[in-house]
């Protein structure tokens, strides 16, 4: 077996390992609150997440990927030694996958993007010194530790307060829910449409302008409004004194919204974070093919399919276990509260990433759950765990960087 074949197979294996870990680590985060509120069973959650992740990865995930996420490194440095970039990419993939493996074992919701960034930084510093690293981008990552949870928390707090005031604190919660629901649905449809169509469906080559996307979003919003307006008619009015029963029916309405937003989060995750596994592999393939090192690299379809496929595989084999374990200790989070958290997270991720603010889906979701909790929306919140989660975010980059350095050094010792 020649060196190229060996390196390619090694890179493919590392990519598969990484993809499996992405699936395992992130599925519970995207679908967790839906399972917690019993809007979905584990099996349904895994199925929906699988469809959404794969669709996001395959249809939206770029066919042209950044060689290195967020332009962390100056790749021109590697022009003379392209093979070092190959070793580095494999080292980065492996270190990120190992960290994710540990994190999902310990139950830490860490960012897969940050993991791969740490890996890239690690080998970058060893190969070219601190100068090749784009430190401005690193500062952005550090900022996202604060920006994501704070924005998510704030927005979730407000959404929850509003829904609570307009529906759950009134004398006729069900009647108010039926009145308000079409508006909420139209906002959800509006935001989801912008998310999907604006710079979203690159693979369909739609290249829509923002104005036309806005138009589509408005149309979708109106569609959602009238659709839900018609659908809520089928729910019988209940003005009885039995508030508990009214709450029950109202919560059932929120289940559908919650599933919709959870689907969107998984979809967005598939479209953004598959690159964490397949981007490095695509770079390796392109270097091995022609020895060219660029900032952007064409993404062969087989690699995208491989990444998407193994994310789903990891999610089914491992994510299922994560969810099942979670299910035994789950608290009674209601669909409306779960909706507030996921909707806030989805909206913040969309708005902030279009505004160019550094944002991480996982971190935002953690923040928005805390936000709902602080608005007296959750029966309990374990603040001890939250401290640990924050520490795990900070640890991500140093940990993967050091592991990646070790791998890179080892490769340099044994490979030409």
């Amino acid at each position: 077996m020649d060196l190229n074949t060996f390196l390619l197979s090694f890179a493919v294996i590392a990519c598969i390992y990484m993809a499996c870990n992405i699936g395992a680590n992130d599925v519970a985060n995207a679908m967790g609150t839906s399972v917690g509120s019993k809007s979905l069973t584990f099996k349904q959650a895994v199925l929906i997440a699988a469809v959404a992740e794969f669709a996001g990865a395959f249809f939206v995930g770029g066919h042209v990927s950044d060689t290195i996420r967020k332009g962390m490194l100056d790749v021109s440095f590697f022009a003379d030694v392209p093979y070092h970039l190959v070793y580095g990419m494999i080292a980065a993939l492996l270190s990120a996958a190992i960290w994710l493996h540990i994190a999902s074992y310990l139950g830490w919701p860490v960012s897969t993007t940050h993991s791969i960034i740490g890996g890239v930084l690690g080998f970058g510093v060893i190969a070219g010194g601190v100068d090749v690293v784009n430190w401005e981008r690193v500062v952005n990552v550090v900022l996202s530790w604060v920006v994501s949870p704070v924005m998510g928390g704030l927005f979730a707090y407000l959404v929850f307060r509003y829904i609570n005031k307009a529906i759950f604190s009134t004398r006729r919660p069900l009647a108010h829910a039926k009145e308000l629901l079409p508006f909420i649905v139209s906002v959800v449809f509006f935001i989801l449409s912008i998310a999907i169509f604006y710079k979203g469906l690159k693979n369909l080559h739609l290249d829509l302008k923002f104005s036309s996307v806005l138009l589509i979003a408005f149309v979708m919003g109106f569609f959602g409004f009238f659709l839900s307006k018609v659908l809520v008619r089928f729910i019988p009015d209940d003005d009885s004194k039995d508030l508990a029963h009214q709450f029950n029916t109202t919560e059932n309405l929120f289940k559908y919204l919650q599933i919709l937003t959870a689907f969107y989060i998984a979809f967005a995750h598939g479209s953004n974070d598959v690159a964490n596994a397949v981007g490095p592999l695509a770079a390796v393939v392109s270097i091995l093919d022609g020895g060219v090192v660029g900032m952007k690299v064409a993404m062969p379809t087989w690699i995208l399919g491989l990444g998407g496929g193994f994310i789903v595989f990891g999610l089914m084999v491992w994510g299922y276990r994560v969810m099942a374990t979670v299910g035994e200790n789950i608290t009674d989070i209601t669909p409306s509260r779960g909706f507030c958290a996921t909707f806030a997270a989805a909206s913040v991720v969309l708005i902030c990433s279009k505004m160019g603010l550094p944002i991480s889906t996982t971190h935002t979701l953690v923040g928005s759950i805390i936000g709902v909790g602080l608005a007296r929306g959750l029966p309990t919140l374990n603040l001890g765990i939250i401290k640990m989660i924050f520490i795990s975010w900070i640890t991500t980059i140093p940990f993967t960087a050091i592991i990646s350095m070790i791998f890179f050094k080892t490769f340099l010792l044994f490979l030409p």
Partner: protein
Amino acid sequence: MRSILSMFSKSPFKPLGSHMDKVRACVDQIEPLFKALDERDYDEVGEVSELIVKLEHEADKIKDDIRTHMRQSVFLPVDKKDFMHLLSAQDDISDAVEDLAVLLRIKNLDTPEIIKDPLADLVSHVVKTAYKGCDLIQELEALLESSFGGAEADKVDKATQVLGTLEWEADRKQFQLAKKLFSLGNQIDAADLFLWNEVIKKLGAVADKTEQIGKTLRIFLSQ
């Protein structure tokens, strides 16, 4: 493997409800206890009081479980101190019922004719009050659902006022009964008098502690 959901701890409101179910089971036995006493069926008194002691112990176990699982780092939608206060109030009810059961087993107590009616009246009133308190705890879930606001809050607020009135009435009935008891003078054995006085006080305590539940819930609402 827990992921993001490890942020949620187990809700202590569910076990609080199960604790109240056990307390209610204790309260259920108050009337059978006094009925057996009235019929001078002392074997039955022994059996019922045995059952009460067992139920109280089960309630205690749930209470201890809640206390040990309530770590410092857990964030609740209500003040943790108030939550613990609520749990204590519930616990005090079952404690008072247990004390009653133990008191009535100390010796085979005769019920003097003159206190029979007011006693039965007080017993049924205290039981009614305690049930009202139990019902209030069952509203907690709906109260959480509305984040302690709106129509549900009004409902609970009204119920706590009713509870206050019931407790006040229980106090008066307790006073009337004590007056009847002490009017017996020398006709009653000193030991019996002492025991009966204790029994009356404990009956009053059941209503008192139930009112505490209402008071704590009102603190929840005021936040």
